[in-house]
């Protein structure tokens, strides 16, 4: 009788619930430290170091790190900080500065979008989950010569998280003439525009959409193109904030648009990749994948490469399909896991990273293989996921625009930077005829070279 008594049943239920609740209780509001995105600032003069700006969390044995650096880092646990790494092309990079400074106990809460750099203003811009956009000096890592601003319409309200990265645009403003403006998209559904030099908001700002914005705007000829979770792609004139057009997709749009050949190429959560006319937003063509398009597409000037959360990288002809026929991929390569990180093009091909840390170099030349051609596997990231965009080791060249690259070193031309979401940054060589090896690996969270 005791076995089946009500109290025993109740006790059993309580125990189950207690275990379930404790085991399964999420850290509500936590786990939001971001993806440790990075941005590369290339040296103006040969011999100058390449700067890598990465926003990564403080983790590991901070006590040991504090002793090593002679700082008390007790308050920095879990804080996200911006680091400037200086890479001289050989050896381990050195940390030029950290913002907020080590030991300050302050941080940015979390960063998902890649920082933006303005060499002319000597500022690096970072948008963070805490709802602030930070403009920090590239020389000193201080916001004293830059600025910091809560991104919101109502000063009485808490700012909403900023997931997308900031974007810079040179615009001829009707009131002040040429200016560099900073675009910041927020989860409150607004696109904000600031004067990049001093953080003063533009008169027309913000531009309002109907959903959270995670897509980093792409800018061309003073027009910003971006997607929103209200399922629309927008084109906004940055001179006056006027909406030029909007295009409705079948799902949320979180990927960064690619501007190519008069088209806006952007993927959506309805599993489709859209090519829109940049002038009027008309649909040029659409391609059906089998899962979300999260990462941005890239192009070598002929072919569009679009990774998807279905694990495939699709190679697409930029021309429209025959009327009445669905657009087909030239080839597709399955990475074996979802791809959330925007790939990069290097002279040898396309470098793609899957979320699980796997990296591959794929041939971009026309392939007779339906599966694409894998040139080589690159060193994978272990114990870390890759979700932030990759970066190339040399300044990108716009399709169709010539560039004198003779002053670039072999390493610059044939390497990529990749950051795991645990803050481990690596530069990987993608040179011809050699093993694809890691040039250097630096754990920004622990501020020491990787083992």
């Amino acid at each position, binding site marked *: 009788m005791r076995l089946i008594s*009500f*109290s025993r049943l109740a006790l059993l239920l309580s125990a189950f619930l207690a275990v379930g609740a404790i085991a399964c*209780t999420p850290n509500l509001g936590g786990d939001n430290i971001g993806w440790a995105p990075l941005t590369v600032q290339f040296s103006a003069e040969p011999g100058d170091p390449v700067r890598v700006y990465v926003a990564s969390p403080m983790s590991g044995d901070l006590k040991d790190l504090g002793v090593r650096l002679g700082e008390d880092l007790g308050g920095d646990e879990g804080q996200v900080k911006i680091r400037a790494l200086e890479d001289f092309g050989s050896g381990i990079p050195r940390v030029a500065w950290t913002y907020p400074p080590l030991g300050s106990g302050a941080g940015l809460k979390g960063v998902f979008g890649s920082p933006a750099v303005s060499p002319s203003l000597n500022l690096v811009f970072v948008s963070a989950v805490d709802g602030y956009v930070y403009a920090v000096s590239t020389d000193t890592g201080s916001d004293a010569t830059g600025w910091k601003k809560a991104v919101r319409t109502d000063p009485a309200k808490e700012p909403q998280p900023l997931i997308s990265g900031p974007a810079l645009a040179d615009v001829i403003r009707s009131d002040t003439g040429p200016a560099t403006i900073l675009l910041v998209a927020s989860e409150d559904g607004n696109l904000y525009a600031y004067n990049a030099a001093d953080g003063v908001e533009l008169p027309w700002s913000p531009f309002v959409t109907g959903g959270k914005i995670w897509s980093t705007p792409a800018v061309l000829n003073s027009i910003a193109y971006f997607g929103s979770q209200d399922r629309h792609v927008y084109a906004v004139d940055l001179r006056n904030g006027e909406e030029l057009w909007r295009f409705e997709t079948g799902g949320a749009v979180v990927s960064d648009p690619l501007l190519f050949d008069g088209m806006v190429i952007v993927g959506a*959560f309805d599993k489709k990749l859209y090519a829109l006319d940049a002038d009027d937003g008309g649909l040029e063509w659409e391609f059906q994948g089998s899962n979300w398009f999260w990462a941005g597409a890239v192009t070598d000037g002929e072919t569009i490469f679009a990774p998807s959360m279905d694990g495939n990288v699709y190679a697409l002809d930029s021309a429209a399909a025959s009327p009445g026929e669905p657009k087909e991929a030239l080839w597709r390569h399955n990475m074996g896991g979802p791809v959330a990180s925007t790939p990069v093009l290097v002279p040898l091909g396309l470098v793609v990273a899957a979320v699980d840390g796997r990296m591959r170099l794929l041939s971009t030349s026309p392939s007779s293989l339906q599966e694409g051609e894998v040139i080589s596997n690159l060193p994978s990231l272990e114990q870390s996921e890759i979700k932030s965009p990759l970066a190339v080791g040399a300044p990108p060249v716009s399709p169709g625009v010539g560039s004198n690259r003779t002053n670039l070193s072999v390493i610059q031309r044939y390497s990529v930077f990749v950051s795991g979401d645990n803050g481990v940054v690596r530069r990987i060589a993608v040179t011809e005829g050699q093993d694809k090896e890691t040039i250097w690996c630096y754990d920004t969270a622990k501020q020491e070279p990787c083992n």
Partner: protein
Amino acid sequence: MEFFFLLWNEVIIRPMLNTLMVLYVVCFSNMGLAIIAFTVLVRLVTLPLTLKQIRQMRRMSELQPRMREIQERHSGDRARISQETMRLYRESGVSPVGCLGPLVVQLPILIGLFRVLIQTLFTKPEDLVGLSQKLYAWITFVPIHSAAPLNDRFLWLSLGEPDPSPIVFPLLVAASTWVQQKMTMTPSPDPRQQSSQTMMLWMIPIFLGFFSLQWPSGLPLYWIVSNLIGVGVQYFITGWGPLFPLIPRSTPAPTQPTQSAERDAASKEMDNDGSSRTNRQNRRRGRRAGAEGARRRPQRGRGGNTK
């Protein structure tokens, strides 16, 4: 361990998550309605188990007088009491673990729903990356992929976050749990058991109410709706049961004896073959009343619960 996680993911999490996503799309992209529909679905699927549990508890309730007699007869001999009790259960066709079925089914669902709500309603990029891999590619009849990120607003709630009020849902959780427990309580002749029953009757609702202060409010919503359905099912089968003293019947039945009087009478009138006269009377009364429909059943049920 890896196998366990795979099993948990494939058997519990993914089917629940995709069902919820389908319901979300069907319910006009309203997650609150989707959770309510999901709860109804779960209760429908587990209805046979629930009915079995109620029948078991009812039978156990009917055996209370005989169990008390066993206790009195073998007072002090715990081994004998246990032996005789088990024999009584065996003879009466009552399974000591029969009541556990719905609990065993409900708990993985509850914990699974907890994880599913976190994965579907938390709209951080990290959560969505994981969600994309859990959606079934073969579900094409409803555009579940396009539905993400989900709208978590329902009434005054963000279903992925605790109730901002913050006491409405915790109170409803506690109250509905208390009512359902009270209705399903099996009266015990043992004073110690009565005391522990009373303690648990209050402790579990308080415990759950306290936890629901922290839970994403979608989970308390599930729990409240599930309890209400449970109360409804219980009412139609056994009536208000021990809740009766709190809720007066709509049709008074002055000739029926009180619970304690009936129990005493049942004890005194126990037959040698193990069934009481009151039981037989009730069964006859039940057969007569059976055709009169559900309106009469609660009264009959009350008698059944308090024999």
